[in-house]
């Protein structure tokens, strides 16, 4: 595509061209109207003077007769100017005046008429005039008129000026269009160039902002925010895949090692059987990790929002409590439940239950085995409402999480050093955090002195709607 072709194809040029067309049409219409009204004005002025002169001459005739009229007309005819006079007898014979020949029948017409005539001295040049014929008593005719040369000249001046100005408008408009289009094209080209480097893999690239605050700057600003978000996501994705690689490869390696070891050392059927059982257990663990990852991804994409319904958070707490109570008791732990009256929450009951069940799993897993006091062996699970939020929390008196690690603990795959020896995928708290975010809430981890209070903060349904 040629440079000109590219320019002509741009939206800016097409818009300028459309504006130009509309403006030129408008200017043209204005000029036509102007020319027409000027001409009408000149015509009416001529008509008035002709009328006045006829009235004056007719008066002279009435008072002093034909001789005097002929004398006056003869005198006036000799003056230079555009005035036309003619006095004839009833048969059309000229007595005085400065008109050579007239179109036939002119003298029989009354009222203002435009005619073509010849001057007596220039027989071959026809001229335009506005005349009026007046019948005098005794059949004499008086014709008074004005040559229209002046009017035509004025008309020509206006028409010529109009043509020129329209030509000027078109030339200036085209030039302006090209100029604006080139400016716009330059900025778009700059944006395109940056976009291409970004597409080529330079995720740190940003669109140029001219600083004028115009629509291009606003667009560039918004796109830059979007690019920043994409860069953060890409970065997160890279980090997550590294973590996935680590946390899936570790158990896979372990599984493979165990299988190899069994092949090498197992001597009887029982040993092979044990190795197979171990393999199945390891792969079940892998499947659980994988499912947790998928769930987190699904929750973070917000896809599950379609299945949201309104449920009572206290009911979920009571149900989970009822599910875990025997297990807690078997581990020598007391379960305390504190619930407010109904706390309506909009969301996915199953996911919130699973999040809460993860918190319970953790609380039971990390509970202090040897008791230092009665309170150390209790887990408090509660659902309370405060300031338009439902707070669902599980408080234990285990080792807790050091303040510096609490944010990290909710990230995917993070397992704090202290928990490396306990079974688990390390995804429990990340999943809880993802579920909380899906419900426009958050997961808060607070010190319980000793132990940990994990709280899922969810917006109450009535507040979420308003």
């Amino acid at each position: 595509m040629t440079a000109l072709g590219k320019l002509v194809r741009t939206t800016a040029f097409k818009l300028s061209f459309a504006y130009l067309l509309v403006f030129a049409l408008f200017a043209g219409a204005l000029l036509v109207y102007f020319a027409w009204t000027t001409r009408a004005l000149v015509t009416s002025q001529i008509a008035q003077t002709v009328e006045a002169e006829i009235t004056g001459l007719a008066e002279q005739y009435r008072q002093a007769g034909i001789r005097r009229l002929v004398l006056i007309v003869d005198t006036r005819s000799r003056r230079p100017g555009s005035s036309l006079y003619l006095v004839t007898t009833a048969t059309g014979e000229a007595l005085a005046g400065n008109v050579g020949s007239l179109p036939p029948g002119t003298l029989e017409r009354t009222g203002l008429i435009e005619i073509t005539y010849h001057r007596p001295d220039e027989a071959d040049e026809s001229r335009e005039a506005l005349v009026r014929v007046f019948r005098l008593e005794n059949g004499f005719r008086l014709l008074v008129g004005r040559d229209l040369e002046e009017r035509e000249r004025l008309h020509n001046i206006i028409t010529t000026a109009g043509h020129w100005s329209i030509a000027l408008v078109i030339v200036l408009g085209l030039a302006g269009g090209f100029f604006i289009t080139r400016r716009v094209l330059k900025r778009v080209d700059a944006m395109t160039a940056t976009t291409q480097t970004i597409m080529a893999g330079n995720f740190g690239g940003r669109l140029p902002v001219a600083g004028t605050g115009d629509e291009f700057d606003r667009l560039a600003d918004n796109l830059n925010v979007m690019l920043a978000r994409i860069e953060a996501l890409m970065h997160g994705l890279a980090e997550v895949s590294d973590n996935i690689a680590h946390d899936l490869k570790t158990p896979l390696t372990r599984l493979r090692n165990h299988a190899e070891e069994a092949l090498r050392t197992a001597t009887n059927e029982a040993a092979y059987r044990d190795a197979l059982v171990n393999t199945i257990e390891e792969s079940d663990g892998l499947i659980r990790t994988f499912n947790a990852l998928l769930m987190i991804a699904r929750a973070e994409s917000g896809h599950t929002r379609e299945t949201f319904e309104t449920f009572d958070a206290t009911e979920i707490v009571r149900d989970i409590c009822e599910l875990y109570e025997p297990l807690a008791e078997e581990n020598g732990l007391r379960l305390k439940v504190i619930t407010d009256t109904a706390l309506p929450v909009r969301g996915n009951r199953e996911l919130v239950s699973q999040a809460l069940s993860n918190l319970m799993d953790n609380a039971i897993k990390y509970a202090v085995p040897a008791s230092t006091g009665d309170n150390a062996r209790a887990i408090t699970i509660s659902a309370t409402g405060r300031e338009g939020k439902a707070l669902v929390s599980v408080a234990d008196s285990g080792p807790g999480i050091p303040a510096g690690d609490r944010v990290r603990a909710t990230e995917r795959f993070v397992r704090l050093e202290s928990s490396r020896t306990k079974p688990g995928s390390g995804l429990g708290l990340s999943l809880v955090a993802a579920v909380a975010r899906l419900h426009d809430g958050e997961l808060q981890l607070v010190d319980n002195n000793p132990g940990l209070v994990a709280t899922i903060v969810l917006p109450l349904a009535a507040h979420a709607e308003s």
Partner: protein
Amino acid sequence: MPSPDTWTSPTLAADQIVRMAMRILIIEDDRDAADYLVKAFREVGHVADMATDGEEGLALALEARHDVLIVDRMLPKRDGLSIIGALREKAINVPVLILSALGQVDDRVKGLRAGGDDYLAKPYAFSELLARIEVLARRRPGPNEETVYRIGDLELDRLSHEVTRGGAEIALQPREFRLLEYLMKHAGQVVTRTMLLENVWDYHFDPQTNVIDVHISRLRSKIDKGFSRPLLHTIRGAGYMVRDAKGANIPAP
């Protein structure tokens, strides 16, 4: 409370279970996976046919010779959910278990809404699939269900919520009652932990700890402790089963 582990709990190996043969249709495009299932079902005494695409599967299912269908969701030519839709349209109400790699909460809801009777995510344990298939195939029609379940000398009255063994009343918590009710409804059939979580608690996730086992221990200590013949059995590697040792109460298919 006495620990449930103070006496040996009755445990059965999976191959000690008496089964009524069923005819199963497996619609699954992965030939390896389908072959594995056909072989595994034959080993436990069932008859299994297989189809590896949606059209073939639907054609076989329309013959209505099968007791239960196992349908993959993503199939060539015709997807699993549309097969179920076509069957239900023709009023073929054979029980269908959807077996799918899509295992999230909303996938399950979609599958069950499309007319599936049960949903199992891949990868799965065969024992889990077998237990679910057997429960599905012997599903009795709903309205004329019995109001009293009897296994040996254990009785559960579903209307008055009374449970007695040898005439003596046993006090159960509401959830323990529902647990026993579900186990007795499927007496003689293996019931897995996830089936209990789904049907008694209505949870479709898998808690990482052995919460269900502890509930079973509690229930067992209430209904079996002090009786010479245990009724609540652990099926090694699979789940649980309520049955009288003589096997007289296995319901006819």
